[in-house]
């Protein structure tokens, strides 16, 4: 209270001053009117005009004055020193009589004249990016430099070498002029090379380097094959012309090219191609081992489809069953020189077929070939397209156990199809061929084009390529010695044998060899060649069968063990 009282004179003084009271310094209330003032003030700028300012430098307003002392209003809001350019600062003033001075402007030039540093440094990382660190290993920071020598700040706090994962290290730098470098990120992959991470890298490589490119190539080949100006269309157009034979040969060659791509994809019928019981794959190409039997093309159904395609306006290939479409049907239609139908006499659809002229029959077959080729192209493209969104879910570390095995399951095509259905089955050396039959010629793949052996070769080469894409290294981490080399040797034996057969007997097809086995003595000779494939034999394809079986025996035992995968179709333990 006392203190407040003592301050009261001060409050009073402030109050009086603020209200304009007190003091005698103010003007009289009614002054004598002076003559009217019509002279405008004149503004004079201080400092330079134009004024040069360094880029990113400091802009200092030099000010201005009037001849009559009025306040000058300065508008320098346009000036932006962080952008090179020319800016205007305006100066205005008016006197008490309302006379407006002529506006003055000053030009402020923001320029990078080289003497100031306006360039951000650039960070360059030392060492690898991404950098791989083994789980629980030591993370060594390889460092980074800038082009102008500034210190690089490194934030590696996120890296945890005790947990598998991908971590970011962030590198930043700023120069003396305050120019900040664009931050650089290094990825540190903490991996457990003994476990899933390596499986993941192998699977990723196989998918990106083999599977997807194979489906791309197949899609492209199939599209070219079925194109409006493609080889099938050209053959259809060339019927009954001088170029018919050439056009047919071209179409057949084109079919072989597509089939070459198909045979490569057969070793990885996984993902989109495997979905819904391999429906897309079967539409592209149908030849299937199932439950110890082999499903092949139905030539009679294809014959009937030819008639339907030419007589029914609403005929659609996509509505027909698998065993009368796909590249298998096209092979029959393009390669089979016998134009008669293959049905028994009681199939009404083809009742009138054999009476048609050759030209008519070729023409009608050509129509269906073209329609099926389009369907093949659509489905091949679909598989490739589906891999796009599917890829990331397939090479997903969270599912690597499952997806890696789907991939290795796919390799068992080599056992079920290449070995059993395509080769040893027809030769009578496999359970797919019933015991009461000497041989099973009906199972031969691509019998009209006689490409069976070539397909086996492509399968084998592709098998080798996939195995060599890191599966070999994975296996050798567990296998004693270098098992993968032994295994590759067995695979190469198969390829070498096929090359030898093809070189020495170019005209000898698997069909010929199967057909040559007609007696129990022949059977015994084939069994012997199969059992001792290293010994020269009159039946080299029986020997080949033995060589292929060596590969699949290792596949079923060593391969599954070293890669820690299961045998497809094998059930869990029964402890029996």
């Amino acid at each position, binding site marked *: 209270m006392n203190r407040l009282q003592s301050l009261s004179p001060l409050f009073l003084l402030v109050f009086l001053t603020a209200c304009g009271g007190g003091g005698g310094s103010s003007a009289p209330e009614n002054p004598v009117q002076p003559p009217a003032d019509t002279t405008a003030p004149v503004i004079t700028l201080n400092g330079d005009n134009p004024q040069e300012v360094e880029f990113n430098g400091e802009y200092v307003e030099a000010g201005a004055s009037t001849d009559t002392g009025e306040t000058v209003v300065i508008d320098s809001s346009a000036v932006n020193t962080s952008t090179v350019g020319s800016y205007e600062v305006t100066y205005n003033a008016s006197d008490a009589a309302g006379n407006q001075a002529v506006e003055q402007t000053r030009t402020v030039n923001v320029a990078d004249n080289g003497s100031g540093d306006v360039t951000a440094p650039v960070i360059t990382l030392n060492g690898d990016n991404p950098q791989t660190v083994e789980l629980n290993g030591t993370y060594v920071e390889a460092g980074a430099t800038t082009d102008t020598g500034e210190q690089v700040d490194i934030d590696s706090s996120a890296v945890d070498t005790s947990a598998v994962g991908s971590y970011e290290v962030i590198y930043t730098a700023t120069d003396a002029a305050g120019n900040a470098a664009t931050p650089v990120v290094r990825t540190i992959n903490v991996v457990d090379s003994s476990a899933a991470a390596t499986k993941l890298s192998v699977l990723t490589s196989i998918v990106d380097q083999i599977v997807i490119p194979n489906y791309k190539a197949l899609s492209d080949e199939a599209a070219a094959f079925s194109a409006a100006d493609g080889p099938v269309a050209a053959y259809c157009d060339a019927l009954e012309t001088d170029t018919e034979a050439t056009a047919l040969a071209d179409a057949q060659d084109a079919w072989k090219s597509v089939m070459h791509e198909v045979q490569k994809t057969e070793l990885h019928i996984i993902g989109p191609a495997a979905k819904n019981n391999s429906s897309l794959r079967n539409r592209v190409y149908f030849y299937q081992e199932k439950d110890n039997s082999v499903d092949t093309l139905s030539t009679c159904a294809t014959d009937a489809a030819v008639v339907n395609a030419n007589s029914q306006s609403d005929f659609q290939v996509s509505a027909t069953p698998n065993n009368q479409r796909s590249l298998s049907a096209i092979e029959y239609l393009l390669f089979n020189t016998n134009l008669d139908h293959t049905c028994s006499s009681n199939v009404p659809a083809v009742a009138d077929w054999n009476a048609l002229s050759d030209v008519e029959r070729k023409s009608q077959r050509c129509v269906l070939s073209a329609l099926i080729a389009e369907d093949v192209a659509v489905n091949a493209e679909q598989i490739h397209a589906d891999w796009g969104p599917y890829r990331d879910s397939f090479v997903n570390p969270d599912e690597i156990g*499952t997806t890696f095995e789907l991939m290795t399951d796919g390799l068992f095509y080599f056992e079920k199809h290449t070995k059993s259905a395509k080769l040893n089955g027809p030769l009578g050396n496999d*359970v797919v061929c019933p015991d009461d039959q000497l041989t099973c010629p009906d199972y031969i793949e691509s019998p009209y084009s006689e490409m069976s052996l070539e397909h086996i070769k492509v399968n084998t080469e592709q098998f080798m390529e996939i195995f060599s894409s890191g599966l070999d290294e994975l296996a050798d981490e567990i296998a004693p010695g270098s098992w993968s080399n032994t295994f590759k040797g067995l695979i190469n034996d198969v390829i070498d044998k096929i090359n030898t057969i093809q070189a020495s007997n170019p005209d000898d097809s698997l069909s010929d060899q199967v057909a040559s086995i007609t007696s129990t003595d022949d059977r015994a000779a084939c069994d012997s060649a199969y059992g001792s494939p290293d010994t020269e034999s009159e039946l080299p394809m029986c020997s080949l069968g033995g060589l292929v079986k060596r590969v699949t025996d290792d596949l079923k035992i060593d391969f599954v063990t070293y890669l820690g995968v299961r045998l497809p179709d094998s059930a869990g333990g029964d402890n029996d």
Partner: protein
Amino acid sequence: MFTSVNATSNVPDPVIKEVLIIGTKEEKQRLPGSAIQISAEDLSKQSYSDLNQIVSSVPGVYVREEDGYGLRPNIGIRGATSDRSQKITLMEDGVLIAPAPYTAPAAYYITNASRLYALEVLKGPSAIQSGPHTVGGAINLVTRPVPKEDFNEIDLTFGSDGYQKIAATSAYVGDNIGVLLEGLRYGSDGFKELDGGGDSGFTRNDVNIKTQWTPETDLLQTLTIKLGFADEDANETYLGLTDDDFSASPERRYAGSQLDRFQSQHRQIHLSHLLYLKDGLELSTKLYRNEYHRSWNKIGGFIDGPKVQDVLNQPGAYTSAYRILQGLQDSVVGDFTDLTIDVTDNDREYSSQGIQFDITKNADLFGFQHSVKLGLRYHQDDVRRRHQTRSYLMRAQNLVSDGIARPLKTNNYAQTDAFAVWLSNDISWSSWTLNVGVRHEDISGSVDDKLAGTLLENTQSITAPGLGLHRQLTENLGFLAGIYVGFSPSGPGKSGAESEESVNVEYGFRYLADDFSGELIAFKSDYDNLLGRCRASDSDCQVGQEFSGGNAEVSGVELTAQGQYELNDAFLLTSQLNYTYSESKFKSTFFSQFSQWGLVSKGDELPYIPKHTSSLKFGMESDQWGLDIAVKYQHGMRETPGSSVSGDGLHTDNLTTIDVSAVWFTNKDIDIKLLVRNITDESAIVSHRPYGARPNLPRTLLAQVKLRF
């Protein structure tokens, strides 16, 4: 107590003698080989209904727990694999009792432990008298004999997790005929907790009638007819847990196992005739037939998808599959894999029958005392496997059929005919006893695989000798040593696969006195061509496949000691110690498709052979009450071959359990007993097989009342 002379003090004369293999007290004393008897008294102390628990304390015996109740025991002896007890010879009263001991020896049926009256474990040279599996040894389960006088008993037990057992025994004894009727029903709600609820328990019924006729003829003879019926209904599964889930909740069961169910029926008729001829000649004849049918619906993995073992070992790499097993995620059809759950009905019908003769002749010749035994057996058994796969989708934690008809996974018929002959002679002179014996088997079998359309046949002919020696060093102390060749035939249809053979050596000391007895025996089993029996569903164990066997060596020391001390004439104190030390190693590098082996390197230890097992028992008994404490320790076991000290591969945990039993003999007709199994509630991973980590029985309280009238 076992091994000791007083162990069989309650074994009566010819009546039970005919079902005992080791024989009576007198015969046991000079037995030139190690063999163990567990008496009725000892069996009753802890009232185990789990055979694993009973035999696990026998030296040289290895047990792998599976379901916690011992429904399907896994027992191995001296290196013979414990997997489903298939490498040892299992008998009931001297008759082969596994469903098909030659064709499919996995012991899916075994005599209920609650019915046991005594138990014998044969090891060493004595093992050769009981084939076909002699690499490790044999177990003879002795059932209650027809008593001498009328007898009625009811045994009621109730306990934790809804455990209940009702056993009723009634005997009528006439002048020369006796009838024993036994009924047993026991079961539990199960200690495992199924995700989303559901039963995890079991019920077993077992009815047996034994009729014994001793006609008044010049020659002493008895005829015994035994009829048995047993069934089981168990919500049992092969599915275990990941190690992490086990740590969190060991008794959990994933929703994926909710349809799993084991159902079986067993029927048997055994005829036994024992005839005492003149001049120490005895003839025993046994005629038997067993029938067994089981249906086991159980999750077997994912159709065309990952193996359950892999999912549980590495759940992070099989995220969808792992979540679907738990019901946390629905099966998505049309994705990269449908992850459709395979629940296969492993349906099998077995039969086993045969006739066997055992002739014993005691005679003195050339100044030596001879005890010649000749055994002949003709045996047939078969199994019809018809495994029907059914497929289910996980939907909101329930398995829902996907409606797709699936083919049979396995469809085959396998059978074996076997003729076995065994001859042995115990030659005694002064303090020496020498046993020479030989076993020969001619086995022919076939497998008709209806799926592959193949019929595979094979024959085996095996002769294996044995030699045992016993020398009585002092009145109480004897030395014994033995060597024999053991074998285990390969299954039918395994052309090219040889039988498993072993050379087994043992030596040690036996001490027998009134109040103290013990054995200290070293053993070594050298296995040639160790066979891992390929599982039925492995399609690749057929013709000529490279099913490699390997050589292995198992050696160790077995110690058993027991004593008793009478305190103030009022209390009887008993104690018993058993300990087994085992070492094992593979002697070659090979690769096997047997799931427990896989790739084996020379020097690797065999799986499921614990380095140390031991048990320690204390008992105290008066006229009014009794107390028995059993402490058991099993060292962690390697579950895959390996050699490093730890860290690689699967291991089971060390496990120490304490079982306590207290009985009050209220009067001569009523006993009241309280039992606590695993009183400290130890929890350990006892196995990662078949699929994933499995727990032991948690603490279980039982109350038992026995009424005799």
